[in-house]
């Protein structure tokens, strides 16, 4: 039998919705639990609260959220960033400015990281090839095709196709030995243009290097 006063019952009645959603503090929780345990009318009222809670959650959950909402938000955010971009003030901190620039350049960071990773994946072999191709150069001795050439050294260019089985190490060794470099290529047909020293000796040498070249043609 309930020993609660009407005032106490009223106080507990007011708290029931929050007892149902679990956000009461410990003191109020204990107060409500004690009251529910001894007052049948309050316990019935709490059952009604639980029914209301279940119905409300169901009702709101049934409300469709437009499929387009996220896309529209992204578009609005992009437009917002476009407006903000020129308004970056010089007085802002470096970190903030950098953050803003990175954000502007790479709207989605995971995509940016993926982009950077992809760039590294592509760059590493390219650097390796480049270093192989140019690794035989001594400072001041050989330049790239676009660079200035050291005068007094006879050079020739050869159009070659490497044997598919050959490794870049073999090619590198050959170029080092003959003070040469790759100046163009590969073309769509897999041809490379090499620039080499001592051309007369070289033709014979290259003809003999059947392991490295599929064919060799003078390029100039």
């Amino acid at each position, binding site marked *: 039998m309930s020993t609660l006063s009407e005032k106490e019952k009223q106080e507990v*009645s007011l708290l029931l919705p929050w007892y149902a959603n679990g956000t009461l503090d410990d003191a109020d929780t204990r107060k409500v639990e004690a009251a529910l345990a001894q007052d049948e009318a309050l316990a019935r009222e709490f059952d009604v609260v639980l029914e209301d809670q279940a119905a409300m959650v169901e009702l709101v959950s049934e409300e469709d959220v*437009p499929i387009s909402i996220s896309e529209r938000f992204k578009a609005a955010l992009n437009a917002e960033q476009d407006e903000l971009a020129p308004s970056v003030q010089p007085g802002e901190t470096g970190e903030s400015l950098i953050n803003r620039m990175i954000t502007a350049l790479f709207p989605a960071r995971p995509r940016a990281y993926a982009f950077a990773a992809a760039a590294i994946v592509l760059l590493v072999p390219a650097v390796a090839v480049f270093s192989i191709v140019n690794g035989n150069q001594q400072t001041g001795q050989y330049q790239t095709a676009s660079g200035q050439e050291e005068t007094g050294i006879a050079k020739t260019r050869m159009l070659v196709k490497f044997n598919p089985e050959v490794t870049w190490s073999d090619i590198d060794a050959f170029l080092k030995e003959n003070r040469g470099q790759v100046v163009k290529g590969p073309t769509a047909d897999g041809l490379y243009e090499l620039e080499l020293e001592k051309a007369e000796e070289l033709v014979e040498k290259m003809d003999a290097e059947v392991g490295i070249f599929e064919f060799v043609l003078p390029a100039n």
Partner: protein
Amino acid sequence: MSADDDQRQLEKVANGDRQAIGVLYQRHHKRVFHFVRRYVSDVAAAEDLTNDVFIEVWQKASAYEGRSKVSSWLLGVARYKALSEVRKKKPVHSKSEQILDALEDGADDPEMVSQKRDKGAAIKRCMQTLSRDHRVILELIYYHEKSIEEVSEILDIPKNTVKTRTFHARKQLSAEMTAQGLDRGWP
């Protein structure tokens, strides 16, 4: 989803982290949309308002003072924006009589009769007849699971008003149920 992580994400947003605003958006936009719908009946307008809330968060994340949960702060921003929108236009109030009339008109429909026997469906129908203030407060408690303090902050009303308004909302709901012949024994 934790309140602490929401706060961390918001700090990132304040530093211009676009991914963080995306995280917060994914976590909360549906709840914000549902909340805004209580103020604007038009779905497209609710969609715009919801997105406006998050654009404002993007612009003014540093204004968050950490006194309430991020989810409550979002709803507070949403309420402010929704009320501004409503003030621009004629307010749309629930018209319980019209809705009840419509329900009575459909009473001959066997499907509707069957639905009326379903208590949950009846409660839901009656909830739709509540005034906006009553429905909003019940939704904040039951659906958004907000505490008394949080509801007070979101609606900008004293805590005692939160309690009494909620009590009246529940009473009104039961009165609507009784009017439909579904007496639940309370109050």
